[in-house]
């Protein structure tokens, strides 16, 4: 199971701040991106950053471990 988190403007467009995705062995982060972006296109047009277990991910071929926490994040606007 993959725990997917959304915050701020992305959460607002998706209508929730978390969802669960099924885990498949050798699943890559871009596979999850593609599935979710197809399902929530308006939310994903805001996504600038992806994190796995709280670490920024730039290589979208990274393999997702089971029980990962994945966050799809819009551009930050703190401070």
């Amino acid at each position, binding site marked *: 199971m993959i725990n997917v988190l959304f915050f*701020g403007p992305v959460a607002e467009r998706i209508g929730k701040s978390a969802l669960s995705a099924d885990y498949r062995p050798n699943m890559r982060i871009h596979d999850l991106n593609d599935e979710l972006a197809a399902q929530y296109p308006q939310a994903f047009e805001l996504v600038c950053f992806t994190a796995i277990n709280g670490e920024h991910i730039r290589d979208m071929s990274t393999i997702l471990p089971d029980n990962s926490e994945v966050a799809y994040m*819009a551009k*930050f606007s*703190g401070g």
Partner: protein
Amino acid sequence: MNDHVRIQLEDFSQDEEISALKSTSKSMGGIGTFLGCARDFSEGREVSQLSFDAYGSMALSEMNKLRREAIAKFGLLDARIVHRIGTVKSGDNIVFIAAGAEHRLAALEACRWMIDELKQRVPIWKKEITPQGDLWVTQHP
């Protein structure tokens, strides 16, 4: 209150933060701080409140990294970062950054570097609450 880096709902006191910062070294000759506050106007829109959402665990971890990097990069004696979340009203405090060094230049430069980096690196999002409706801020002001 004793944590160097915090995300919290409640307001903070500059006197308490500076006193905690100073307590780490008697060699601190200069302290630079930045305080970010909620403005009543943003690009022509009246803003009555700001609401902050954060990816708490990652934000805290990024803020801790930022503090450690600033200490190493500028040779600081200590540094503190506090960011509020939840809803704040116009005029209220949002973020406080303090950098203490032996000399003023390092303290002032580190303070500026930390607020610039915080805005780029720390997963926190701001929504402006205006009489015309709410708006998530998506560009860096």
